[in-house]
């Protein structure tokens, strides 16, 4: 069941990624906004460390991986 969930997510992503528009540099005013940055920019980083200590899961786009602390 879990493998099916992961498979469905990957299929949806690949279908979405194929329907993409070419964006020229002068058309990137929205994409270049700070709030559109990928990952965990700015003040979100510290909370990712809290999650690594208080929860079992790490990684997957988080700024905190496994190791380097007495955390999970």
């Amino acid at each position, binding site marked *: 069941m879990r493998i099916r969930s992961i498979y469905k997510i990957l299929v949806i992503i690949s279908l979405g990624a194929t329907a993409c528009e070419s964006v020229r540099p002068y058309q990137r005013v929205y994409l270049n906004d700070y709030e559109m940055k990928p990952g965990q920019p700015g003040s979100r980083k*510290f909370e990712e460390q809290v999650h690594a200590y208080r*929860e079992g899961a790490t990684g997957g*786009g988080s700024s905190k991986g*496994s190791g380097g*602390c*007495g955390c999970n």
Partner: protein
Amino acid sequence: MKKRYIAIGLLASSLASFGQRSDSTYRKKKLSATDVQIIMSYYTQDNDHSAVTGGTGTEDLQVYATQFTVDYQTDSLNTFHVDGGLDIISSASTDNIDYVQSSASKTDVRSHLNAGYSRSIRRKGITAGANTGFSIESDYSSFNTGLFFSKINSSQSREISIALQMFFDDLRWGRLHGGKPEKLIYPVELRSVEWFDHYRRTSYNLDLSFYRVINRRMAIGVYPGLAYQSGLLSTPFHRVYFSDRSKRVENLPGDRFKIPIGVQLNTFIGGRWIFRTYYRVYWDNFGIFSNTINLEAAYKMSGRFTVTPFIRIYGQTSADDFKNYGDHDVSEEFYTSDYDLSRFESIKPGVSVRFAPYSGSGPTTFNAIELRYAFYRRSDGMEAHTATLVISYTKVKQKGPRNISNKP
């Protein structure tokens, strides 16, 4: 005849006129930029399932964290990175390792420092780099090193990156008391036994990132990862109580595989709203399977002010070796009562406010100041508050000879 003279006149004037003069005094400018970010955070929590006392007892904890990040771009190709910080930790549960209430055992300090370098090959859209660093606290020290590589296409609509980060940890106590790591610290009443004959922990993190622009207002990122840990994965001062009323030190397997996959979709709607949606599924061989959903709705009140309410929902299954206080059987090989590895759901609402004037005088630009608050509640009763302040600015410096003005 008249047309002939006009044509000759036009030809003669075109030979004598010039759109721009060649400026022999022009010098190519080299600019270096330094981005500085300062982060100050405060974290407080409380709960009644401390792993130090076997899954019961106070988890009252405060953390005062300060961190700085400096990215120094010498030119368009080379970037040096330094980050470091200091965390002051006050923990009531740590005081219960030896049941002696003292400020010395209740307070700890964690310091960390990292440095890195990256080099870009602009023609090919490639950036590669390496980093290293360390962190130290009284019961833990860690040395880390890593490599990363990324490639972006010419239109900047697709980017792929890969990063490998390795941590080499030492769990012995005493580092901040006399400067030498001594031994593992067990609960005071269990120190007659040498529970572990090893004190090192090694972690490998392989993180991939696939970023794709979908259209002018939407971009998607996929973040699969793989992590492997080996060595002493137990915490030496965690107690475990058994059904026959005996107690031991926590014992977890010596290997742990983790597979997280995260997906992020950022969308700019209208002229003011940005929706950041994130979903992660996670599995590890400890038996933990989790789902994470994070939703943020940034509203641009003006060109400088942005308010972002957010909510994060998380749920995980229990690790196979976790049981509540007093539920473990003495015949079990691995056992823990650390509620961070138990089955629970959590919710984290919050809000952040960002002021980004991008103003300044001379070469220094004040980029932004951001204040963020989050309330965290776990289904086992834990409640926590986090407040973070981020200040960032950029300094640009011109390198090389200045231009000489070309006055007629």
